[in-house]
């Protein structure tokens, strides 16, 4: 478990350190006792009757990024996100929002945090069935004590923003799943929070609608640049949305890094098995496959691609050009890629030890946004089955 990140700009939105959540009798003693803390889940349960849902987790969420927490069910990711606003009271560790200690907050302060700074979107929407769409969206504002006319006006704007115009007076029961989640999203957006927390928001939706909603999130993020913490069990979704991904297993973060890092250099066998079926060419960038230009002619001529273009885009360019292509960063040639190197990436041959990794990992927010912009259309193509079959063997 490594925190590769260095603080980018100012204090992180969320700074989490040594966070534990243990369920069960006398849960307090578990984090403090190194012997107990080291036990694996089954042993812990049989020894103490406790379950540790979150174990010694630490990470920073930077301003403006989409931070994805990914893991299978039971990995503790949903508990983790609830700990951030103390919907579930953490057992041990520190959480700070903009440098302010969340765990030290009193009731009023905590409510202020929930009202104004962090809003959450839920897997099963959590809408109030007896209220109209508009009143559901305005609910957060109502709680804050805003007047009826004002909050309705504000809510109507947000309803329009998520594409639900004309449905203001419907009840949740009259909406489709996707529409309901738009209401959930609008409700969270209506209070204009600093951070949006998503708890597996799309896993209850049909695949096509899920894709639409993902695009919606991408769009919102592009337009507003709001910080997001996104919980998912879907690796594709994590790779598509995340600037950085924390991969959880049994309550611990097993790897934290950019999608490219996770796919390109899995920290252990668990992560490797996890990312095995990912179409690598759609995640890895050309940096992974590029080599220095052999000749100055090679560095000066031929078509170019951006350094954060995906391998799959580069393959398209290479096949169109028929030769190797240049990787251009602000018009400067930083290297070249050829068909062989690109195909190696697809085949999973070049996995580790690429020199330019550190740059990519530190990827600025602009780069992330751009990459996502590029990745989005690529996502629509079906993954090429051939690389998938070859990657059956462990790399």
């Amino acid at each position: 478990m490594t925190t590769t990140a260095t603080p980018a700009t100012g204090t992180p939105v969320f700074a989490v350190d040594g966070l534990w959540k243990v369920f069960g009798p006398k849960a307090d003693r578990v984090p403090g006792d190194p012997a107990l803390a080291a036990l694996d889940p089954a042993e812990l349960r049989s020894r103490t009757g406790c379950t540790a849902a979150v174990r010694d987790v630490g990470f920073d969420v930077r301003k403006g990024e989409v931070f994805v927490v990914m893991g299978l069910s039971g990995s503790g990711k949903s508990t983790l996100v609830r700990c951030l606003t103390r919907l579930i009271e953490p057992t041990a560790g520190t959480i700070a929002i903009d440098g302010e200690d969340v765990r030290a907050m009193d009731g009023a302060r905590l409510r202020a945090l929930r009202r104004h700074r962090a809003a959450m979107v839920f897997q099963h929407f959590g809408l109030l069935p007896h209220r109209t769409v508009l009143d559901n969206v305005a609910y957060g504002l109502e709680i804050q004590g805003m007047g009826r006319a004002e909050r309705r006006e504000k809510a109507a704007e947000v309803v329009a923003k998520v594409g639900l115009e004309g449905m203001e007076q419907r009840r949740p029961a009259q909406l489709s799943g996707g529409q309901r989640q738009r209401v959930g999203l609008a409700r969270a957006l209506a209070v204009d929070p600093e951070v949006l927390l998503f708890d597996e928001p799309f896993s209850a939706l049909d695949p096509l609608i899920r894709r639409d909603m993902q695009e919606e999130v991408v769009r919102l993020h592009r337009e507003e640049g709001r910080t997001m913490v996104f919980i998912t069990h879907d690796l594709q979704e994590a790779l598509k949305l995340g600037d950085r991904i924390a991969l959880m297993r049994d309550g611990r973060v097993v790897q934290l890094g950019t999608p490219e890092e996770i796919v390109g250099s899995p920290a252990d066998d668990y992560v490797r098995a996890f990312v095995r079926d990912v179409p690598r060419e759609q995640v890895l960038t050309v940096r992974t496959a590029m080599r220095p230009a052999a000749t100055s002619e090679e560095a000066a001529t031929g078509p170019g691609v951006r350094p954060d273009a995906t391998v799959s885009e580069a393959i398209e360019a290479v096949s169109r050009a028929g030769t190797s292509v240049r990787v251009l960063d602000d018009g400067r040639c930083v290297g070249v890629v050829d068909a062989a190197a690109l195909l190696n990436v697809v085949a999973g041959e070049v996995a580790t030890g690429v020199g330019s990794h550190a740059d990519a990992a530190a990827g600025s927010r602009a780069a992330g946004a751009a990459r996502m912009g590029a990745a989005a259309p690529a996502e629509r193509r079906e993954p090429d089955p051939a690389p998938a079959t070859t990657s059956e063997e462990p790399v």
Partner: protein
Amino acid sequence: MATLTATAEKTSPPGIRANPTARKLAALALVAAVLVPLAAARWSSGTWPGALTVDVSGPLGRTSDWIIDNRDSHPLFLHFLGHVSNAVVISVRAVYLALLAVGWAGVTGVCALVAWRVAGVRLALGTAGAFLACGLLGMWVPTMQTLALMVVAVAVSVLVGMVLGLAAGLSGRMDRILRPVLDTMQVLPAFAYLLPVVLVFGIGVPAAVLATVVYAAPPMARLTALGLRGADKEVLEAVESLGTTARQRLLTARLPLARRELLLGLNQTIMMALSMAVIASVIGAGGLGDRVYQALASVDVGAALAAGVPIVLLAVVLDRVTGAAGARLGQEPAPHARALWAAALAAAAAVAVAGRLTDRLEWPDGWVVGIAEPVNRAVGWMTDHLYSGVPVVGGTADWAGRFTTWVLDPLRDGLQWLPWWSVLLVVAGLAWVIGTWRTALTATSAMAAIGVLGVWKPSLDTLSQVLAAVAVTLLVGFATGVAAARSDRVERLLRPVLDVFQTMPQFVYLIPVVALFGVGRAPAVAAAVVYALPAVVRITTQGLRQVDPAALEAARSLGATSGQQLRQVQLPLARPALLLAVNQGVVLVLAVVIIGGLVGGGALGYDVVFGLAQGDLATGLVAGAAIVCLGLMLDRVTQPTERRARKGA
């Protein structure tokens, strides 16, 4: 005994279940082997040994005397109970005067319009028709009296029920404390509630209202707690994540989310309050119940019917309107809802004012249709022709006589002949087989308490009537239920009948059975069967219909005949529902068998009536306590491990 053994067999089919059953029975046999010889050696008599009874009638009699002597002087009465009583009288009076002031046209109009807004045009017409029928039968004033009493009782019940329900819904500890109490109150016969309140408040409206509240509040409390606890966890979490305070959460989310349960609670509370308000005429509630009670005293079936019909109409209307209000929840409100409400109110006010101005507040005397005479003629014809001496089949009185001689007497004598410890043993065994050792302990203690109270014999008499009635109910109920489950047409025909029968107050059943079966235990049993049948039929039908269609399809694909499907798939899979039907049947039968004391049923019900009639509260209270114990025991012995939400009683 027949039913009890039948139940036992049902719960111990061969196979996996047989093992724990056998284990439990073996453990019980062990305990019995030690205790029974001891007990039998010391107190060897068939009936409950006198050495083990505690005579509570002395202290109870003294308490009752003390209360009567101090009712007008002791501070507890002057400063607390007196105020309670006063408040009840003042509020009932206020509602009653308001109803009279609005006049018959106004009341009919307002109720119809409310029904229109919450439940639609058809029910509005039904409501108006029901009220007009009450007037036509010459029962306008008694109907208003009952309505006034109901309004107050229901309001207080809902308030009390909601407070208790909120406590149980919001606090786990309160829930653990309240739930068994409420569950138990739910199964107790209405009659058992009458005496304690009479003891404190004396005969009259306050006692009637308070008995009604005690009887009708538990369903509200249970359903409120259920609604609060059953709320979608994620919605609550979502609401909390937006920074709500606890009060905001309660008002904007928890209560609205529980609306369906709250309305169902209101519906049940109203139905139970009506049922109790009628029974409470025995302790001076007045109104429609009193008219039935008076008519019952003179076996004037026609007059009883004239008062009974308004009760039934009131019950059906109240049930349907609140039910429809519940069903309409979550639907999009009609456009201009507010305007329509305003129009409705304005119209109602106009009707009331018009009535006031034209001085037509009282139901006109000329508009009364006497149904008593034709009904009595019909009943007279029936008693003359059906009552006895009908060739071949015999008259109803002959049936009643034969049922008494061949079923009730042997059953009662058999039960009373059994050594007391063997009765306890049977109870313990049944309860343990069907539940846990806790249920067995509760059931056995309840049964033993009956012995200790010194009413062993009358209780066994009551028990014999209950068993006979349950046997008949289940026989008829299961057969009808199976028929209804297998044929849509039968179900369609049955449904309205069941609906009406299920909403009728227990009291109403007493009149026709006296006319048909005379006086004695047989009519009490008949009334109990008729009262319990709808619930049993309904639960059976639902249980059979809800059997997994895949299982049925699989059986069909293997070529099972429809009889085989029923026996081998539907009935076994519907077992939980059938057990529930047994439980419900027993609870409902007990309630009416007790009331049967009013038509010569004897035993515990008679003791309660006697206690009330002679002001001998000691006898009545002991019988009431025995009824409570009997109810508890019967419920535990037939209660499947998991209790479900259910309607009625």
